[in-house]
């Protein structure tokens, strides 16, 4: 007995000694080893693929990648780190989360000091605008945009007597109402749900197709007054009333299972979603195809790379950005993962234009997504966008779950947003 305690105590002391004397991982990077840097990304976008490709090309560079969690969790972790902890050298910030950070640009390196002003012109103007402050400091470099499309299951469409060719399918739904009608048809023929859910696949798509979203052109809050937001909201209620949704919340475990099991035939598919389908439902390879989204165009999603001010190795992080986010780099990313580049110069590159994806019945993904971002009317994304969007989404989810009456939904949503924006 005594021996157990003594050995345990010695062991613990030894452990503490080792642990205490081990330098924190942040001292592994920095000036002692200027080729290593720390990179925080969100998960489920297979960031590892790009990091590995970069390390292969630069064997002397060590990229410490951490996939923190969802986009929101990554933004939260970043804020906590900026508040007084260890910051990464490079961080990926989702477009809806960026405006909040833009309010305190002093927390980030002005990338124009590292050379960003020279490459600024490579990127879509409306995307770049979001990451440049009023004083002209460049805070982030855009990595990709989502575009918009609808992914559908060809086998399930066939069983329901619907066409499977993507041109024909795209013609089936030029408007959201038409999509709803197709949905009703499908449900009647098969008795199973048509679309995965309405909050994400209807509301988040429709609301992102407008010319203004939650802020107006003067950058003032307008979510409650903007008729486009209300229209998207009402549309969602209408689709919900049609009873064609599987009611699986996006990114939940039931949703990922549903993809494999064919619980729904249709889901929203911005470019980055394709990768999710591929990883979550590998057994459904070849059973999907991609059609245009009702309304033709729109953009959901897109992220930026930024460098926190206190980064130990800003230079190494910048080298990564400069290379991987150059037009060639983004094109390479597109060819491996399917993320839509933000560098319009590659939109006409034959490798992109002729790109097809076998998982999705050889759909010409390059063409489909570049076409979906042509002609969009970009809107301003403000600091509280993420919060407002979440509250609206949650209210619509509650409607879908039968917890909020549709006729009370809009008022409930406004009240929820107001609550969330307190303080």
């Amino acid at each position, binding site marked *: 007995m005594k021996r157990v*305690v003594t050995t*345990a105590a010695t062991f613990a002391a030894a452990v503490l000694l080792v*642990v205490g004397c081990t330098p*924190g991982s942040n001292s592994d990077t920095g000036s002692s080893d200027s080729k290593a840097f720390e990179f925080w990304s969100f998960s489920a976008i297979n960031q590892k693929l790009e990091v590995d490709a970069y390390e292969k090309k630069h064997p002397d560079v060590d990229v410490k990648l951490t996939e923190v969690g969802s986009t929101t*969790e990554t933004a939260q972790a970043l804020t906590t780190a900026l508040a007084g902890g260890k910051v990464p050298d490079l961080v990926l910030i989702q477009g809806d989360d960026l405006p909040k950070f833009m309010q305190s640009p002093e927390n980030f390196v002005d990338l124009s000091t590292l050379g960003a002003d020279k490459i600024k012109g490579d990127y879509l103007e409306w995307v770049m605008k979001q990451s440049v402050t009023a004083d002209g400091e460049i805070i982030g470099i855009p990595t990709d945009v989502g575009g918009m499309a609808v992914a559908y299951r060809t086998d399930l469409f066939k069983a329901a007597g619907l066409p499977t060719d993507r041109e024909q399918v795209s013609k089936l739904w030029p408007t959201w109402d038409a999509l709803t009608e197709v949905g009703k048809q499908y449900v009647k023929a098969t008795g199973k749900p048509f679309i995965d859910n309405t909050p994400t696949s209807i509301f988040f798509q429709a609301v992102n197709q407008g010319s203004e979203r939650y802020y107006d052109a003067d950058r003032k809050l307008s979510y409650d007054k903007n008729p486009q937001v209300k229209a998207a909201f009402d549309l969602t209620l209408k689709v919900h009333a049609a009873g064609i949704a599987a009611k699986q919340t996006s990114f939940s475990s039931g949703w990922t299972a549903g993809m494999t099991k064919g619980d729904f035939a249709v889901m929203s598919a911005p470019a980055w979603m394709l990768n999710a389908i591929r990883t979550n439902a590998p057994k459904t390879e070849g059973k999907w195809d991609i059609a245009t989204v009702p309304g033709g165009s729109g953009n959901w999603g897109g992220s930026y790379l930024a460098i926190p001010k206190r980064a130990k190795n800003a230079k190494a992080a910048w080298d990564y950005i400069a290379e991987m986010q150059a037009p060639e780099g983004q094109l390479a990313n597109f060819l491996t993962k399917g993320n839509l580049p933000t560098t319009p110069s590659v939109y006409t590159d034959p490798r992109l234009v002729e790109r097809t994806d076998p998982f999705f019945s050889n759909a010409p993904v390059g063409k489909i997504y570049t076409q979906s971002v042509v002609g969009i009317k970009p809107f301003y994304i403000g600091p509280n966008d993420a919060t407002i969007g979440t509250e609206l989404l949650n209210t619509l989810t509650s409607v879908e779950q039968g917890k909020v009456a549709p006729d009370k939904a809009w008022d409930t949503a406004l009240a929820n947003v107001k609550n969330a924006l307190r303080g």
Partner: protein
Amino acid sequence: MNPTSTTTNAPPRRRRGVGRVPFLVYVLLGLMVFASVFPLYWMFVVSTTDSATAYNLPPHVVPGGNFLHLANLVFTTVPFVGALVNSLAVATAVGVGQALLCALAGFAFAKLSFPGRNTLFLVVVLTMTVPAQLAVIPQYLIMSKLGWVDTLQAVIVPGLVSAFGIFWMRQHIGSTIDDELMHAARVDGATTWQIFWRVAFPLVRPAAFVLGLFGFVNAWNDFLWPFIVLKSPDRYTVQIAIKALQNSRDIDLGLAMSGSFLATLPLLVLFVFVGRRLVQGIMEGAFKG
């Protein structure tokens, strides 16, 4: 226990049920064991098949053959071995630290009289009402001032504070060590430290060991604070690694369950060896509490 000596002259028996244990009792016990163990079994089953199968109805309750594949995926998705080592280091340090510190303080409260003793003890008791989550924000700021963010000591050191542990040790020392013993030792000229280390502590070592076990288990399972303060994958404890698994592939259930199972396994193994002590510890504590 002699079933024939039922005369009133026999010392009072302490348990009921002299005769055979009814079958019903075993049935009920079987249910209890089933309820306690089934979720773990289910965790194991899912970690041996895959998500798609887990989402089958009727449920597939027999283990499949996918364990190695998923386990391998666990080890390659997050640095799981490192996480196991980190958890082991943290839990051991906390267990041992708590046992020693609480024995020390418990001894002082139980056997030494000094001004302010009762007030200080009351403070100790009051701290048990404070939820740990309250202090999380300022604690993080303290850690960043100390430069301890993303280090294991940030998780270990706050974990050494256990008001319950002091309560427990004070209880045990109070009831195990006679005042006479103390007095005799003093007469022999022993210093307080000697009394503690050579007299009191050996006597309550079993209780201290159990306290250390509890500290170990709690530290192993701790989630919130490590989640906030540990950021690099090579610093993750095993619980954070599970959450990272949950995130890694849009909630791949098979992967998450596999990681969960692997994270629970070490404790289960430990439990096989020291479970009896834990049980005894809880029951003795109740007795004297």
